[in-house]
């Protein structure tokens, strides 16, 4: 078994997806969190791409949160059973990260309150719109892939519950019943529940 070290901040953010995958697989890893005792400023210059999270696998470091998660998903049999399933799962991750999540960055960067309010409105509309597209992608009974639970489900759960959470107007999942089943399925997973119960509390 390789030795894994995940380096990220104290919160969920872009590191939690990988933490969920480690949890589902019950794979031991060092959950390293930058803070007062371990300063990010001291590690930034040598971090892959100068960013976090990064994953150390037997001493070798790799960056980019989605790539790290994809690698772990493949190692843990959570990426999809066939190449076409992997392509499908990848598309879901890309939709969530590029078509939905990326738009949230513009909200955080905007200082003007009026413009912020407008961006927020557009974000919610865009998210609801993309949820309909994601609904079309769900092929399993309560999973995106026919073959069962995959990182696509966990990624969506992570977006809906952790990123979007209660920061914005509630998105009515009645319009997207398959997505609701996906979320419920991940939420009901014993390993996910155990991790959520024991993980450090954090603001983000």
């Amino acid at each position, binding site marked *: 078994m390789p030795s894994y070290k995940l380096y990220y901040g104290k919160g969920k953010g872009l590191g939690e997806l990988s933490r969920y995958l480690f949890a589902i697989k019950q794979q031991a890893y060092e959950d390293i969190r930058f803070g007062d005792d371990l300063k990010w400023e001291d590690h930034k210059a040598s971090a892959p791409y100068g960013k976090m999270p990064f994953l150390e696998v037997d001493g070798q470091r*790799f960056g980019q949160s989605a790539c790290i998660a994809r690698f772990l998903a493949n190692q843990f049999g959570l990426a999809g059973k066939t190449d*076409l399933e992997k392509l499908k799962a*990848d598309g879901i991750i890309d939709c969530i990260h590029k078509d939905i999540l990326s738009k949230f960055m513009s909200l955080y960067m905007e200082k003007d309150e009026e413009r912020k309010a407008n961006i927020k409105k557009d974000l919610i509309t865009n998210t609801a719109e993309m949820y309909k597209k994601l609904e079309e992608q769900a092929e399993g009974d309560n999973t995106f892939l026919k073959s069962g639970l995959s990182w696509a489900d966990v990624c969506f759960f992570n977006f809906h519950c952790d990123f979007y959470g209660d920061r914005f107007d509630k998105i009515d999942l009645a319009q997207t019943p398959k997505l609701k089943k996906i979320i419920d399925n991940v939420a009901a997973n014993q390993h996910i529940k155990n991790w959520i119960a024991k993980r450090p509390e954090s603001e983000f």
Partner: protein
Amino acid sequence: MPHYKLYYANGRGFGELSRYLFALAQQDYEDIRFGDDLKWEDFKPSAPYGRMPFLEIDGERFGQNASIARYLANAFNLGGATDLEKLKADGVIDCIQKDILSKVSAVFRVSDEEKKAILKKEAYDNTVEFYGKLEEQVSGENTFLKSGLSWADIVFYNFHTDLYADRFDAIDLSPTPKLKKVIDNVAQNEHIKNWISKRPVTQF
């Protein structure tokens, strides 16, 4: 052999990466381009994620340009020789598409000339910074991966030559000699040269 159809606009844009991969593998495919004869508006509602490009494989459709390209790269042995190499290549793609391209694309979404100029400078500075990070990722002689040519090289070539191109201040590659070698290696590839000489000439 599966039957492939790539659907995109009549331009390089986000479709060209896959076209380069088909060319490298000398794999037949239908290069379908929306335009006056084939209206995108007619396809949009049923397109995966409502966007282009999408790839049809034996009749099944898949969206998201990076996911499509990853699938093809793996099918054509251009994904990386090991799981860790694939993780590394993935990281290069995400750096380009998320860390760099996002600031480049931002310029095109703005019409105000003054704002455009500011964003253009930001895009340039950001690109230079991340070229420095990408330089650190190059493990081969003239390829990102030790094992040789991979889609990571193609993605970088595609960004530098087609997407960034001459739309912004020229980037001096002398601080990043490995990146220069990566680009030259792709540019000299016979299959790439053949494709470039015969592909439709387009504005973007």
